[in-house]
C-alpha cells in the first residue's frame, strides 16, 4: 500500500494536505473518508482553555501503525494516514486526523471507524484539561471501549 503514514505532530495538522496525499495515492481510488477529532471548548460541561496531550514516544507510533496494518488486512485500502497531535491544543484545533482511501466507500468508512475506535482505547495518549487542577486528566470513556469491542 502506498500513501501509508503514521505521524505524531507537535504543531497544527494540515488536514487539507493530508487528505490530498491520500486521495492522490492511486488512480483507482473512488472513495476517501476523513475523520478529524477536534478540541471542544468544553469537556463534560466544564469550559476549557486548552488540552495538553501527553504520549509514550515510540509506543504511540507503533500502536497506531499496527492498527493501520490490521485495517489494511481487513479492507482493500489503497492508502491510509493517521496524524496525532501532542502538546498544547486549543479549542477548534485538530487533535487527531485519520484518512482512508479505497475503490468503494464501504471499505473507506469501515477502516476509518476501525482505526479511530482502536486508537481511542489503545494508543498511549493522555489528555489533561488546562485550566483545571494539576490532576485534571480526562477520564477514559467506557463508550470507547464498547466501540472497540465490536471489531473483535
Amino acid at each position, binding site marked *: 500500500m502506498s500513501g501509508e503514514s503514521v505521524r505524531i505532530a507537535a504543531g497544527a495538522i494540515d488536514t487539507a494536505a493530508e487528505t490530498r496525499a491520500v486521495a492522490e495515492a492511486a488512480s483507482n481510488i473512488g472513495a476517501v473518508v476523513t475523520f478529524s477529532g477536534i478540541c471542544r471548548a468544553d469537556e463534560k460541561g466544564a469550559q476549557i482553555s486548552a488540552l495538553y496531550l501527553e504520549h*509514550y514516544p515510540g*509506543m504511540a507510533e507503533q500502536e497506531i501503525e499496527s492498527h493501520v496494518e490490521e485495517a489494511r488486512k481487513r479492507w482493500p485500502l489503497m492508502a491510509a494516514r493517521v496524524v496525532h497531535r501532542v502538546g498544547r491544543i486549543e479549542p477548534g484545533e485538530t487533535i487527531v486526523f485519520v484518512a482512508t482511501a479505497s475503490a468503494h466507500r464501504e471499505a473507506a468508512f469501515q477502516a476509518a471507524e476501525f482505526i*479511530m475506535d482502536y486508537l481511542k482505547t489503545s*494508543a498511549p495518549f*493522555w489528555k489533561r484539561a488546562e485550566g483545571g487542577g494539576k490532576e485534571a486528566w480526562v477520564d477514559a470513556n467506557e463508550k470507547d471501549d464498547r466501540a472497540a469491542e465490536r471489531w473483535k
Partner: protein
Amino acid sequence: MKIVYFAWLRERLDKTEEEVDPPPSVQTIGELMDWLKTRGEEYAYAFDNPKVIRAAIDKTHVRPEAKIAGAGEIAFFPPMTGG
C-alpha cells in the same frame, strides 16, 4: 530494571522514569505494582487502585499476569484518552 510513568502516575510519583531492583519473588506486572506500592507514600497513592493502571513491556500492552523477566522497559500509565 527501567520503569517509565505517564500522565497522573508520572505526576503522583513526580518522576518520568527510574531504575528499580525488585526482589526475585516479584515475577509479574501485578506483583511489581504491589511491590512498588510499598516504596513510600507517593507510590501508595499512585498505585492505590491497580485495576485502573495499564502496563506495557517494551512498548507492547501486557496484562497484570505478564512475566517481567527479561523486560527492557516497563511502562505504567492510566487508561488511554487519545484521539
